């Protein structure tokens, strides 16, 4: 691949154009989970198709944690918002979340920020 060909995409105009073109589709596919979390594990053994569905409902101080949690076929639990970690236990995972997101779990209680799924409201540009 040639650098000059690709460099055309590095201009300011091109960058803004690509954001306008690509962002709507990425919003639809790249959205956080919401609600209970179901993990689906599938594999085949001796010709038999195995499906294991695991549901999680996690609360911290009574407030739901709603990101996407998954379980890999070797039984480890992972959470997409902390993408470089996996855990032997969902409890260990939630402890890590409390440490990793100090703005969501303030000190001695849960200061979960209001979490809207209703999209943006009109505002002015800063």
């Amino acid at each position, binding site marked *: *691949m040639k*650098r000059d*060909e*690709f*460099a*055309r*995409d*590095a*201009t*300011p105009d*091109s*960058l*803004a154009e*690509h*954001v*306008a073109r*690509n*962002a709507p589709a*990425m*919003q639809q596919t*790249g*959205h956080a989970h*919401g609600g209970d979390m179901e993990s*689906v594990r*599938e*594999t085949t053994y001796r010709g038999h198709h195995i499906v294991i569905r695991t549901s999680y409902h996690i609360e911290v101080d009574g407030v739901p944690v709603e*990101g*996407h*949690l998954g379980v*890999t*076929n070797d039984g480890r639990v*992972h959470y*997409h*918002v*902390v*993408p*470089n*970690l*996996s*855990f*032997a236990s969902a409890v*260990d995972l939630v*402890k890590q*979340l409390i440490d*990793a*997101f100090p*703005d*969501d*779990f303030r000190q001695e209680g849960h200061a979960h*920020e209001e*979490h*809207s799924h209703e*999209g*943006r*409201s*009109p*505002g*002015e*540009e*800063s």
Partner: protein
Amino acid sequence: MPTRNTLTKDAPPERSRKVAALRRNILSNSTSRQKYIQGVKLLKQEFLGPTTADFGIAGTVRRISTYDLFVVWHHLAMFTFTPPSQGDRNAAHRGPVFLPWHRFMLILFELQLQRVLNDDNFGLPYWDWAADGERSPDQQMTSPVWGTQCMGGQGNPVTTGPFAFNLADPARWRVRVDADVNGQLRATDRGLRRAFAQRRSDQSSAPVLPRRTEVTSAANLSTYDAWPWSTASSGFRNRLEGWQPVHPYSGLHNRVHVWVGGDMLPSSSPNDPVFYLNHCNVDRIWAAWLASRGTTYVPSQSASSTLRGHRIDDAMNALLSDPVTPRQMLDVDDFYSYDTLA
């Protein structure tokens, strides 16, 4: 979507460029180090039009800087499951595309740096973290990379070095977009966070950086990737990404994210300029593997459609440009080379 080689556009303005950019060790080249710091600060202050509204981020509409567009892209790619019916592989991680997608991201970022620095020969620096991994745990935390003339130290917020926070100075480094605990992008305005070598009771600890023997062990794997093309795979990609082996700590790339901690932990990890130093070193290790093994990549295009986004000629997830394919990322000699692959 069209891949890059199908496009026709006006030729870019001519700028002097004689050789591919040279990517250097950030600790051994002060010019590279200073330009990198200067460049990321320029991108952080550049606003080309996109706003939080373009990404459905709740609250008052704010402009998003060029630097922060890469933060948003990394997050969105991570939340794009491939295929959507499963929750392990995503469009940039936990599967074969991990290495070519991040090479794609780094090339685009490097091109932006070259533009704002007006230097078409500027190459991203890398942090050879395995060299620091040979130091004692205490020495790792005081490595020159964390010095005031390089990346600065740890803290909430970071208070030393070029990315130190100062509430009263809007020109200082600020985190403006991050992910909340539920995986929603949100606007914020705060200092950068780092928390080195956090020790925990479970396997999420990263008390020490990876060592050279661990890099060598990965490089000796002859297979790039293998079924089930996920975090359970054997092969070089999964070892370098850091999912195998799981004992005692996470592996190479993953452990560096976790060791640095703070803003390097969430899906918005490009908020920390150290992100690019880590991934440039990961890319360097892949470049060394390709040089010794040949330009091989799997899965092939004839693999199952459930691997769409990871096969050699699939369009990779793109936000800031047209997409490219993993195949197009196998030979990038026209873009850059490394000072050393050792």
